[in-house]
């Protein structure tokens, strides 16, 4: 029995990290109907930037986030303003191809500069510390911190969206960009702010990812798929739904991996397919 409880707990905690990957994807899709194919590659890019900051400046990983997140925010704003705003249209082709192109560029630049070796961000033993919670049951300190961060960021995003001026502008632009523009909202700026937040979150997620496991330049696509599945499983339109989707995906993978080590990721995929077939709007949809 303990082994299954353990699997579920580990799954929930990993799900927090998946939710961190997925929030930005959910945010960008919600506001611009744009799916950023390069999302997973941006996670890996942030892991590499985190690694360079940790090794180059000799900072602790958490201190490194204070450097990585501002870089990510600026990168997101510039990416949207400079490139992605040119691709917004009803036809999904343009934004898909352009973000796909960005994905290929990031992967291959990382390969060219960092080689295909796997890397890790070392955090002075934090990655191996654990808290015992029962007999034969313990949780890692790092996964707990990641999960708590995911919960806080979800609450923060929901507050930003629901209770602030900028959140109102986000919602207005999402509902009707033409009308929003008539009310004096600068859509290009609003879109860029949304992407800045989305990529900014990846600054946190990327450093966590690098601390939790090893990473390599071509790992991004797999992370994009996890993030996408979390969004679909949770249901579009609410950040709590995305968090729940990440957690459910994490649980499915953890249970699958206990049944057969080759089936962990596959179990998550099968859950995604089942959700599409039987609950196509996800578990917690909130149609805006």
């Amino acid at each position, binding site marked *: 029995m303990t082994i299954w409880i353990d699997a579920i707990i580990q799954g929930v905690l990993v799900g927090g990290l998946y939710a961190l990957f997925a929030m930005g994807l959910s945010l960008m899709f919600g506001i611009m109907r744009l*799916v950023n194919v390069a999302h997973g590659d941006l996670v890996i890019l942030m892991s590499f930037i985190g690694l360079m900051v940790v090794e180059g400046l000799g900072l602790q990983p958490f201190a490194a986030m204070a450097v990585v997140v501002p870089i990510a925010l600026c990168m997101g704003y510039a990416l949207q303003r400079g*490139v992605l705003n*040119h*691709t917004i249209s009803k036809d*999904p082709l343009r934004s898909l191809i352009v973000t796909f192109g960005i994905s*290929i560029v990031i992967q*291959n630049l990382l390969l060219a500069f960092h080689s295909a070796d796997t890397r890790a961000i070392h955090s002075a033993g934090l990655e191996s510390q654990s808290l015992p919670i029962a007999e034969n049951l313990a949780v890692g300190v790092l996964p707990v911190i990641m999960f708590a961060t995911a919960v806080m960021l979800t609450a923060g995003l929901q507050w930003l969206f629901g209770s602030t001026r900028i959140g109102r502008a986000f919602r207005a632009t999402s509902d009707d960009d033409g009308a929003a523009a008539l009310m004096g909202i600068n859509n290009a700026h609003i879109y860029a702010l949304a992407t800045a937040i989305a990529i900014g979150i990846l600054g946190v997620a990327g450093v966590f990812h690098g601390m939790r496991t090893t990473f390599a330049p071509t790992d991004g696509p797999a992370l994009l798929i996890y993030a996408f599945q979390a969004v679909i499983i949770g249901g579009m339109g609410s950040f709590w739904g995305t968090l729940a989707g990440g957690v459910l995906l994490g649980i499915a993978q953890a249970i699958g991996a206990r049944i057969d080590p080759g089936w962990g990721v596959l179990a998550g995929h099968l859950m995604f397919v089942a959700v599409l*077939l039987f609950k196509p709007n996800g578990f917690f949809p909130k149609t805006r």
Partner: protein
Amino acid sequence: MSTTMGVTAAASARPGDGGHVVERSTRAGIATMVFFAVSLGFSVSMPFWADAIYLRWLSELACYFVMAQMWNLLGGYGGLVSIGQQAYIGIGGYALIVLANMAGINPFAAVLLCGVAAAVAAMPISRIVFRLHGPTFAIGTWAVAEILRLLVANTTVLGGGSGTSLLALRGFDRATREAITFWVSIGASYGSVLLVYLLLRSKFGLALTAIRDSELASRSQGIDVGRTKFLVYVISAFGFGIAGAIYFLGTLRISPDAAFGVSWSPLIIFMVIIGGVGTIAGPLFGAVLFFALSKVFEDFGSWYLTALGLLAIVVTIWFPKGIFGFIEDRYDLRLFPVQRRLRVRSTP
């Protein structure tokens, strides 16, 4: 785009009335057909005199022709942008292993069956991916290809993660094998172009492009949107299945990563985009360009791919019709006339 306008035009303007004609063939189109017939004859004779390396190169290029045509049919004409068509390359390739290695069917004859296998697999898969729309459809197709990759990697009979070899070709001597592979791939590439051309000139093609331009408007005109999308998805899978089988006839070895790997997608999509999405000649042009560049720059590895990614971004934003679409518009050159275009005679 212009096709939907063409529908109304064709309905209202009868040839000769008020100096308008509906144009369905062009002089360039006829020249293209002549060129195709001549080049087909030329290609078929190649195994009798050409060097083996050129046969191998052209077989590979022919696979890209098929894939580019089939992606363009789905994404460019049908508006169903997929990043997961490698699912059907993989199914085609592994179907070849099952049919030739295990069932003992002649590998060259099995190629067509591999296409059928991919088309059959596409039917239930379409139930899953059509739950998603627009950009989410694209990522959904990719997730499905990943699922298939993992399933095959976990299947020991198919060689698991490290893959397996096409042992059924042991009985053929090298020259025969390469010649037949070449003929099969040439046949598939001409066949794919002809198929797309005929489909687009038919009622089906008109419905397809109408749905791409406005799903709502086409539904209100009585087009069965669900059936049209389903059909184009299955046809595209069929083509990819054949291309996959032929590709692995050439390499003789298959593995889940090579067959279902996501590296296929940028290859095919960039060919179509850079060549000219939504035209028949564009993807062919893109495939030749891509193939030539890859042979020249293959030593540059990741820098070459970086440049290709940047080129795709630039073309998509500033030349959305691709290189060939740009030429078509600039010189009014229609090599494959699939549109109905209204011409106003200069003298009334």
